[in-house]
């Protein structure tokens, strides 16, 4: 039998490290449940960036993100005694974050903004330049202001998607969540998440193309005779 290289050691070490981290976290959670504020503060420090990522993925408005994230941690603190440690603390916390975001959107009665033929000539140029900037082989040095404007345009495209699709796309493509983490956080089956991600990317590009088509045509420059 040929020697088969042992490729399991790094995997095993990662698994052991992950299990140790999970055990340490369970100890912290139990201490926080017993009333130790310092333990909760440690959990807060560990998970705050990801909570911001989840809330930011759904709300997309900077001034709301910190308020909602703060509510998430306060709510989690007062619900801590009901947490039975069956899932990871992070998963439980991100579910609270998602629910707080939906409640916040319902209260604000946020309607999906539809930008129909709202693009100016300049904006349509920027929109077209996005794909050139993204896909072009030679990417010229980007002007920061232009880049910011292009980002705003893509945010507008994203705002036309369904809230859940938007959250999934941002969590996956921008914030680096795995499909399994997204499925646990949003309470969906893993395969459902994968199919929705696949479809949502397509919808985003569809919206992008529609914007380009609906954009006002560029006025023709007339050259003076003589």
């Amino acid at each position, binding site marked *: 039998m040929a020697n088969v290289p042992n490729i399991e050691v790094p995997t095993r070490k990662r698994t052991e490290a992950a299990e140790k981290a999970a055990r340490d976290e369970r100890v912290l959670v139990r201490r926080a449940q017993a009333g130790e504020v310092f333990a909760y503060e440690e959990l807060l420090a560990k998970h705050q960036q990801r909570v*911001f990522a989840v809330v930011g993925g759904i709300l997309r408005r900077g001034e709301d993100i910190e308020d909602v994230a703060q509510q998430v941690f306060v709510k989690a603190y007062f619900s801590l005694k009901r947490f039975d440690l069956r899932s990871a603390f992070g998963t439980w916390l991100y579910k609270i974050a998602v629910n707080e975001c939906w409640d916040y959107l319902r209260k604000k009665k946020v309607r999906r903004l539809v930008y129909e033929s709202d693009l100016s000539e300049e904006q349509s140029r920027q929109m077209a330049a996005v794909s050139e900037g*993204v896909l072009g082989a030679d990417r010229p040095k980007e002007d920061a202001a232009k880049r910011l404007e*292009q980002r705003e345009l893509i945010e507008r495209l994203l705002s036309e998607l369904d809230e859940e699709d938007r959250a999934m796309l941002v969590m996956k493509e921008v914030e680096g969540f795995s499909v399994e983490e997204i499925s646990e956080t949003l309470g969906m089956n893993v395969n459902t998440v994968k199919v929705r991600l696949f479809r949502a990317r397509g919808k985003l590009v569809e919206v992008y193309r529609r914007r380009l088509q609906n954009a006002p045509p560029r006025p023709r420059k007339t050259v003076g005779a003589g």
Partner: protein
Amino acid sequence: MWKRKPIEDVCEDYALRLENVLEDAEAGDQVSLEPDLRGHVGSCDRCRAAFEDAGLGRTLLRWGIAPAPEPGFGFSTRVLATIRADQERRTPGGSIFWRPVELLAGRVALAAATVVMLLGFYVYAFVVPQARSAEFGQEISALVPQPEIQPAPQTKDDVLVLLAEHDNGR
């Protein structure tokens, strides 16, 4: 007869497999479409467009969407301050000094009420019936005339008189 799956369900199956292909490509694995998958993408406009657009969509997002902001300076402090304020709001009359006193007073009151209840039960069950039976005895003796108690005979003549009276009564 075999029931054909609706086209949407068929595409859903392929969408899942295509997403897996994209994930594997993302991970840097060498991927190729399986023959049936390649065949479906070739024949289904919807899936072909989605597969072609998936890469552009992913790139648009990664290039064009900024990640969420970092928590501001002092975020943890603000959260803990909010928690403390909420805790005090939830505790009625929430003074740190008086709260233990209130708790202790509550417990003492409960103990006192229990003792009073037990005493009351004891008095009702045992003391009152005894007092009632003593009263009852006095009432009965008032109704029933008590026989006169004769003094004990002092001499022999007293004994003879007593016997004679007794015989007369027979």
